[in-house]
Each structure stands twice: as structure tokens, then as C-alpha cells.
């Protein structure tokens, strides 16, 4: 197997009183889209920040390895990392309004990256910025390039963020909930664009999201996180056909979907009781306090990730017992 572009091995992120990411491992191949799914508090965004080395100062990485294109990122100094960030690894965030500078034109914000990383200035930079705006399908770039962020719609702002992110043709793009703040119609357009760029620029994408529908349609591979740990990994088709971990099953059952005929007059939605807060201080399986099929033994140890078939990992020793499968009613 070829060396993956990004390999995260046993990564732990620790704050003085909490450990929001625990022994996380995953790989992303060249040009591949990996989705990391989880709810707030699952550690998915911190994982991205750890990889970009943008963690707050109070955070420590006591163990783990992050390898990008054969280089150990944790061993790099600030300067080398700054060089890499934006040039080889780029990131876009959920709320484009808070990541764009409100007092600079979008043209200025794009050329800034080009000047910083590639030394392109003046007219050449402006021309390149214009190209980038058309690359992300912003209509009428000549007119738009001198606009300020507030003059653009949410979808347009996210396109500008993408233009900045891909300005130096990065090999890896982190997209942290890139469409959560957008309408479904705009979401489809933005995801379409990301996927086209992934192909055109042969760039790998790590898509961090809580939206299972987005995952199914855009990811090559899915990692499901809960309370800082990977609880399941699968190809999207398999994940939605036969979810294994009780959390994944619960998520699928809990989501109302267009193509099901579920209606409130006939049926309740399947709930996952409680909230992710209950995982704090749990010594056993972090999902145990909310799990419909938890057993006594689940309180004693954190289940290992077990490879159950090719490309398929699950961290629940009971996920194969038929009664467990029935214990979490599938809403499909």
C-alpha cells in the first residue's frame, strides 16, 4: 500500500483537566476525502487544530505522531509549520464571516496569501486572485474582487474562504463544518465545488461534519468520533447499510430523513438519551452512560478498536451480538 498523505497515530490532546482527544489514529490518502463525524464535544475540531498546530497554549500533546507526506509535524518548529500551513495544508471553518477580515476587501485577503507564500505581488497577484475567484465560481469576479465580506452572501463568503485556502494548491484541506451555517441549496453548491477542486487540484480533503447525509454523499471513508475517541471507521456505504457501534446506530435511527415515511402521528423518533457531557470522568466505554445495550463490563474498560473486515473498525465488543443489534432499533 502506498504511504498515506497524512497519518495520525495514537494522537492525544490534553488540557489540564480534560482529554478531549484520546489515542486517535487515522490515515488520509492522496486525493481522498475522509469524513470525521461527531457531535459537539466529540473532539473533531480539536483534532484539526492539533494537526495544524493551532491548539491553545494550555493544550498538550502527551503522545502521538502526525506524519504529513513523510514528515513528522510534531517535530517541526513554528517557522517550518507556518511555511506548511496555508501552502501545503489549508483549512476552512464553519462561519466564514468570523474568519474573514471585515475591513479588508476580499481581493486583498486573497493576494495576502499569495504574497506571503509565493511572493506574488501587485498586478500579478490581483490577476491570480481574479482567477481564483472564477475557480470557485464567483460570478463577475472583476466586480466582486473589491467587495468587503459584508457585501457577500454566506455562500459567497464560504467560496472566498475556499479561494484563499486553495490559493497555493494545498495537498490537504481541512474543512471544519464548511456548510453547517449554509442553506441546503447553498450547501449542495459548496460541496460540489469542494469536490470539483479536490479532483482538479488532486487535493485530499478532511471533512469534519455532524451531517450524516453529507458524509454519505461526499466521503470516501468515514471516522465516527465520540468523546474524543474513534468508535467506528467504515466506507460510507457499509456504514449506512450496517452501522455497528451503538452510537452510530443511534445517530442513524435518531435522524429524521426525507425518504422515510416516519411521521410524528404514528411513531416516535429513536432517542439517544442523555448528552455527551456524561462521558466526562467515565472510566469505561465513553458511550456507556447513554448506551441502550450497555453491560456491566462496559464500565470497567475502554473497548479496543477491532478490525472486523477490511476498512472496518469498531470499538464495541458487543456490536455483533444479534440482540445488541436489535437493542438499538434501526430507524431505517
Amino acid at each position, binding site marked *: 500500500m502506498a504511504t498515506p498523505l497524512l497519518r495520525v497515530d495514537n494522537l492525544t490532546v490534553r488540557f489540564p483537566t480534560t482529554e478531549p482527544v484520546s489515542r486517535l489514529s487515522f490515515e488520509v490518502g492522496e486525493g481522498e476525502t475522509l469524513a470525521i463525524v461527531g*457531535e*459537539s464535544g466529540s473532539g473533531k475540531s480539536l483534532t484539526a487544530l492539533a494537526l495544524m498546530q493551532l491548539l491553545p497554549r494550555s493544550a498538550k500533546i502527551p503522545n502521538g505522531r502526525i506524519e504529513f507526506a513523510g514528515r513528522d509535524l510534531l517535530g517541526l518548529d513554528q517557522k517550518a509549520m507556518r511555511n506548511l500551513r496555508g501552502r501545503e495544508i489549508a483549512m476552512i471553518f464553519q462561519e466564514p464571516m468570523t474568519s474573514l477580515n471585515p475591513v479588508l476587501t476580499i481581493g486583498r485577503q486573497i493576494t495576502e496569501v499569495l504574497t506571503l507564500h509565493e511572493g506574488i505581488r501587485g498586478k500579478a497577484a490581483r490577476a491570480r486572485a481574479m482567477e481564483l475567484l472564477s475557480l470557485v465560481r464567483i*460570478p463577475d469576479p472583476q466586480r466582486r474582487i473589491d467587495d468587503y465580506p459584508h457585501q457577500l*452572501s*454566506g*455562500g*459567497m463568503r464560504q467560496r472566498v474562504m475556499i479561494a484563499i485556502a486553495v490559493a497555493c494548491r494545498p495537498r490537504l484541506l481541512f474543512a471544519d463544518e464548511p456548510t453547517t451555517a449554509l*442553506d*441546503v*441549496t*447553498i*450547501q*449542495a*453548491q459548496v*460541496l*460540489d465545488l469542494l469536490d470539483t477542486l479536490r479532483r482538479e487540484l488532486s487535493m485530499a480533503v478532511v471533512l469534519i461534519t*455532524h*451531517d*450524516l*447525509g*453529507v*458524509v*454519505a*454523499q*461526499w466521503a470516501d471513508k468515514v471516522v465516527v468520533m465520540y468523546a474524543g475517541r474513534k468508535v467506528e471507521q467504515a466506507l*460510507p456505504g457499509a456504514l*449506512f447499510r450496517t452501522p455497528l457501534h451503538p452510537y452510530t446506530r*443511534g*445517530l*442513524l435511527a*435518531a*435522524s*429524521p*430523513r*426525507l*425518504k422515510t415515511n*416516519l*411521521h*410524528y*402521528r404514528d411513531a*416516535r*423518533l*429513536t*432517542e*439517544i*438519551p442523555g*448528552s*455527551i*457531557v456524561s462521558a466526562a470522568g467515565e472510566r469505561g466505554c465513553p458511550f456507556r452512560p*447513554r448506551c441502550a445495550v450497555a453491560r456491566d463490563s462496559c464500565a470497567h474498560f475502554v473497548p479496543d478498536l477491532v478490525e472486523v473486515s477490511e476498512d472496518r473498525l469498531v470499538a464495541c465488543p458487543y456490536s455483533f451480538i444479534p440482540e445488541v443489534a436489535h437493542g438499538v432499533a434501526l430507524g431505517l
Partner: protein
Amino acid sequence: MALLSVSDLSTHFHAQGGALRAVDGVSLEVGRGETVGLVGESGCGKSTLGKTIMRLVDPTGGKIEFNGTDITVLDASRLKAARRNIQMIFQDPFASLNPRHTIGDILTAPLKVHGIGNKAERRGIVEDIIERVGLPKDSLGRYPHEFSGGQRQRIGIARALILNPELVVCDEPVSALDLSIQAQILNLLVDMKRQLGLSYLFISHDLSVVRYFADRVLVMYLGRIVESADNATLWTSPKHPYTRALMDAVPDPLRRRQAAPIHGDLPSPQNIPSGCRFHTRCPLATDLCRSQEPAFRAIAAGHHVACHYAEPTLN
């Protein structure tokens, strides 16, 4: 008689660059015990419509009737009395609770405003509602920051229900919540409806939630309702191209992706396109659409649509 009946309602704002027509001639009804879903993109005017119905924003024209009373023209004291029966649940459970008040104070305030009960009675009502929404009684002495998003939304629901209203306007009540919590809150809203005989106007941009939760669905585009039908009909035979595009844009885990169904953004409500307001984004638009606004007409019993090319459903 419908519980809520809105006719030709419009809410325009004065803004730089001309009138902003947020709600531009909307008629709708909510029947007793009914849940009406209102869907549309951000900026289509659905929240403004909800707020206008609550009389939190003054309408520019049209009429809002609640229980047969015209509430568009009520003076302050009679409006206050009417509001007892119409309550609202907001999207952001973080922004809609005063961080310096205890949950007990937050829930008691509406009772005081409406002069309900003495101190002991109010305490009883507050304790009853907090348990109904699934929170322990000792929550009453605590502050909003001590609760998670899902729990705060339960508090928001308790506050809306404490006056025993007939109609609750829910403005994106689950959009800010995690998936695993959404189902809890939707189930709670269903339980409350059953127990208290509520009617809901349920505003959401999330079609799959509306699919589950509504009896009837209204689709809004740039200040107007463009399609309305009962739930089953709308999902099985949507007629307006906008409704179809909205549905196609929802990513479905069991279907591989397709190209984005519509292009471009919602036009500005300060500059509403001529003719059919959807024509700038409609894949089927013709010259007729560009010049003439389609009427909102019935194409089958209970199914209305504003499109020149929507075929009547054959019986």
C-alpha cells in the same frame, strides 16, 4: 374556524436602498391541533413572518386573526391578553435565556406578567412544567449556563408552555442542537402537543425535520408562499420547481450525490425579480415567467402552488 388565520400579510422594513419586503402578501391558516411546517432558505422571510404573527414586529398590511379576533389592530393591553395564547420557542437556547436569572425566575416571569396565582400557586405551576419537560425540580434554583444546549431548549419550551397557550410558534427549535439531542426535543414537542392539545407553526429550514413533524407544509420563497399541501402530498408530488430543488438538495445517506439542483443565491428582498420571483434560479423559466407573476392556485384539493407550469393533479 381556523385557530390562526393570516390574510395577505406583509411586513416591509425601511432600509437604505428602498423597502425591504421581508413578508410580501402571505395568507395561511393553522387549524386547532394542527402542526403547520413553514420551510424556506435563510432570508426568505419565514422568521419575520413568525415574529409578525406574534406581533413582535408590526405588519405593513394584511390581517392576523386568532380565534376569530383580529389581533392586528389590538391596543397594548388587549394584545397582552391575546399573547397569553400565542407563545414562541426560539432557535438559540443560549441567546434566549437571561444568564443572570435562575430558571425559576425565568419561568415565573410570564405568570407574574399575566397575574396568575399567588406565590405558592406559581411555584406549583413552575414545578409541574419543569418536570413535564424532563428536567429535575432542583433545576429551578440554577442558572442557564449550568445547562447543556438540549436542556436549555427544554427550558425555552417550558417557558413557552407555562401560560398554557393554544398556539406555539417554533422558530427553528432544533437547528442549533446536535443530532442526538434533536430527536429528544422533537419527541418532547410531540408529547407536549398530545398532553396540552397544542397547535404549532413550525418554522424550519430542515426539510427532513418538517417531513417528520408537520401535518401540512408551506414552502416560502422571497416573502411569499409558493406551495402548500398536506405533508404526504408535498413529499410525494411536489409541484413547484423550488420545492423540488429544496428536496433534491437535502443529502440523503442512502443515495449517491447528484449535481446541485439550483444555482445562485436567494435574490435580495429589496430587489425582488419581476414576474415569478423564482425565475432567476428556476431551471424551467420561460418568458412568461419573467413577465407575469403566477397566481397561487389550487391544483388539487388542499394543494396550492404558484407556478405557471404546475399541472393539475388528475383524479
